[in-house]
């Protein structure tokens, strides 16, 4: 295949392309979904294809096909070139790519047990047992469990001479319990909602979740939750758990630091960003407790890889340092505009799509507190756990999150009382400046978010967020209905 890709690059060079890269990818995916002990879905999906990106003078073109054979590749290369020429006719300014060393390398995400070597029977049985355990609890109306596995093999080659082969394995899963009562229907999830937790580790990641063991707890909680009260709207001191904080980081930090958003490329769809260029190294994004990195090098992080889809090596860089906003996520084109090296955030979800700036692992670094110490610092407030809903404005300022559950804190202790339908909202920098403590490394975990949507055509990317529970003072909780 490498030879075939090189041939296409030579062909494009001979046609006058200023730069070109080509990606051949094979994606294998498995999904299992079980409901109340019965299998609902067992599916396997394999697809492969080639995407070619061409820069003709100052215009980009991209074309992709799943057709096989040399003539099909040549046809699609011609198509990409023709598109680049149409773009170039309207180009107004020179387009540059930040320099990147030539890489000839192979990368494999580190995993112990290939999830595709584990029998479907074993996976189904775990989900069957877990959902039955949850359903055993009186009052549970429905319990679901799912697992998702992915193996991506890709070859990248560019006219600059880079040739990179990568194999990335993704494993994930989770369970839910639902109950219906006078307070509507409620859901509790483990280890997180919307499909659970995901990682670029192997089967061992799912085994460590102990889904069966955790099923009764979410069953019991959800039954209590349907009859639980709602929080009286007001301002409270809150602790946000790691799995919810992952979404909080994702929406209010991960997206606004994408430099293509900042420069307007996403304005007509996902929106822009309040983190305009004049705010770099100037804005107090958060309190001193808030330090955030973009790190594609963490073993197992869902946003980890060896090289991005422009052939830039995976990196770790600061985004927020002790509260000060200091960095963006970049690709080679946007980095060149700032005179910097790309920090390797150009990613495509498939061979059929062009790489755009995506999150890698955007991590809130751990602090020094234990969870008990964070709780001990609250006179009256709540611990909010597990995301239920999210929404944020087009500049990523005004956000509102709902969580599955709120645990009451009184006089520095959890009281055992729970509340349903908690909602909190704020304005991004105001909120992060209210952070007065992050839990330490032993509470820190890289959560996988496998469904981040961006771009047109829409791309769904898997990204990670390292978080530990954190405390925030005086946040508005509850919505006037």
């Amino acid at each position, binding site marked *: 295949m490498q030879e075939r890709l090189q041939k296409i690059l030579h062909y494009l060079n001979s046609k006058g392309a200023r730069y070109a890269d080509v990606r051949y990818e094979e994606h294998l995916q498995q999904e299992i979904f079980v409901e*109340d002990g*019965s*299998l*609902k*879905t*067992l*599916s*396997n*999906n*394999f697809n492969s*294809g080639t995407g070619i990106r061409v820069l003709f003078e100052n215009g*980009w*073109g*991209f*074309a*992709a096909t*799943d057709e096989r054979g040399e003539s099909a590749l040549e046809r*699609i290369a011609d198509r*990409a070139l*023709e*598109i680049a020429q*149409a*773009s170039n*006719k*309207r*180009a107004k300014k020179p387009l540059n790519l930040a320099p990147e060393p030539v890489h000839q390398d192979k990368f494999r995400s580190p995993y112990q047990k290939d999830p595709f070597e584990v029998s*479907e029977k074993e996976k*189904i049985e775990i989900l069957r047992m877990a959902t039955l355990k949850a359903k055993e609890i009186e009052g549970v*109306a429905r319990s679901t469990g799912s697992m998702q596995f992915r193996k991506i093999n890709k070859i990248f080659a560019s006219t600059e001479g880079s040739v990179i082969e990568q194999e990335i394995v993704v494993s994930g899963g989770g369970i839910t319990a*639902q109950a*219906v009562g006078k307070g*509507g*229907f409620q859901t509790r999830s483990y280890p997180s909602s919307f499909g659970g937790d995901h990682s670029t580790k192997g089967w061992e990641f799912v085994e460590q979740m102990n889904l069966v063991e955790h099923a009764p707890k979410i069953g019991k909680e959800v039954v209590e939750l349907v009859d639980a009260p709602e929080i009286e709207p007001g301002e409270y001191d809150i602790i946000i758990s790691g799995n919810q904080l992952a979404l909080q980081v994702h929406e209010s930090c991960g997206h606004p630091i994408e430099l293509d958003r900042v*420069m307007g*490329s*996403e*304005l*007509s*769809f996902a929106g822009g960003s309040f983190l305009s260029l004049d705010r770099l190294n100037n804005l107090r994004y958060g309190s001193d407790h808030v330090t955030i990195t973009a790190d594609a090098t963490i073993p197992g992080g869902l946003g980890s890889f060896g090289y991005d889809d422009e052939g830039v090596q995976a990196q770790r860089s600061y985004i927020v340092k002790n509260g000060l906003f200091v960095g963006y996520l970049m690709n080679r084109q946007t980095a060149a505009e700032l005179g910097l090296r790309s920090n390797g955030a150009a990613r495509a979800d498939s061979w*059929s*799509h*062009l790489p*755009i700036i995506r999150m890698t692992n955007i991590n809130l670094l751990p602090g020094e507190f234990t969870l008990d110490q964070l709780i001990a610092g609250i006179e009256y407030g709540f611990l909010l756990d597990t995301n*239920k*809903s*999210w*929404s944020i*404005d*087009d500049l990523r300022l*005004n956000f*509102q999150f*709902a969580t599955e559950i709120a645990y009451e804190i009184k006089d520095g202790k959890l009281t055992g009382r729970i509340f349903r*339908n908690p909602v909190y*909202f704020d*304005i991004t920098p105001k909120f992060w400046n209210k952070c007065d403590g992050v839990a330490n490394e032993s509470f820190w975990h890289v959560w996988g978010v496998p469904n981040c949507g961006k771009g*047109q*055509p829409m791309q769904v990317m898997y990204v990670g967020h390292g978080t530990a529970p954190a405390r925030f003072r005086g946040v*508005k909780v509850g*919505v006037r*209905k």
Partner: protein
Amino acid sequence: MKGENFYRNLFRLMNEHFTGMKFLCAVSNSEGALTRFANSEIHQNVFEKKSSISVLATKENRIAIATTNDLSINGLKETRKKLEQMLENSTPLDYEFKLPEVSVGYPVENLCDSVRKASAEDRAQIFDRIIKASGKDVQAFGYISDNIFENAVIASNGMFIYQAYSSAGFNFVALSDSGSGYVSSTAKGYKDLDVDKKIQRAIEFAKKSKDPVEVDPGLYTVILGPEAVSDLFFYFSYVCTNGYMHELKMSPSVRFLGQKIGPDYLNVYDDPSCQMQVPLIYDLCGKKRERTPIIEKGVFKNIFYSHGAALRFNKKPTGHTVSLEDLDFAIAANLVVEGGETPVEQIISQTKRGIYVNRFHYMNVVDPYEAMFTGMTRDGTFLIENGQLTRAIKNMRFNVKFFEFTQNIEAISKEIESTSGDYFPAVAPFMKVNNFNFTSKTA
């Protein structure tokens, strides 16, 4: 485009290579191109061509699904081998599974020449028109796209369904010094998009948006543009019309189906026959889709049953199966909110005080049981004073319960428009609604 004969041949090959296996398969092929622009420049220009075949095989009441984009004989043989292994590992369903009944239907081709022949240069020329209309004071952002889709449904019981259709779409954000406007449209072909006329509204809104003022949260009378109406009714359709969730008693439809939820002139359909829609004539199980009332004369009339949910709960499938992987999920693909009697100009002129909302951003479900939705305003929010859009206002967050929203509808415009939507295109009018709950502002 592969053409009907390709799929007829595939039907023959499937029956040859899957002998002895009960199967249902959904085959698709698409060719799509999209030109994206920002800051009045083309920054992304792409084309993709892809196919796939998803085969659902069943044996002893077990099912398994394998999908591949290798449609060669070798690819089909590998798929069969994989399915046999999966069926061995699978466990029986908790309801009696049957393949869908054989649909009898003519092959459908809804293809527009404007899409069939479109090139990157054609899309760039539409971009040129947008830039010219925007002038030097307005920056242009958006996309122009065209797609050709082919779907076939093939089953071991002899079913063969084929449909091909085209679509063209665009959206456009006009950005001035201090404000923005937005329009979008999706249609069968380029000439129905109405680009030149629609972009004028976005440009006008952008120019009118200077110096936005802050408004306190609270209950307001609003006039929602078709983009905002489409989004609200899409979320209603997503949360409230899935028969599976209804049977589990986890849908608001349990309380509201059959109830009068809005005024007599509120009519909402899933309508593949609507000329302004991109029609999906058959669903993924080959079921012919009909124009179905969802809300008629203000009454919540119907919910939808996918193939799996219909089998489970002894209902008739309604033509809303959109995934073989989730046979229980159903949704309307051709949502049409009908227009009313009053011109929008008249609705605005009769409004003493209120807020005009052009578009919502990032809607989501806060509480599925209550059908409570949240989101932000965006790209054209104005104060209405004494029958006129007077001043731009800063964006606001809303939290509304859908069934309170419909009870508060005061007027529906005669004019309807096609909108691109985040998931499916929709057709919708302008709507005047009282007591719309804005809960926070961006400041």
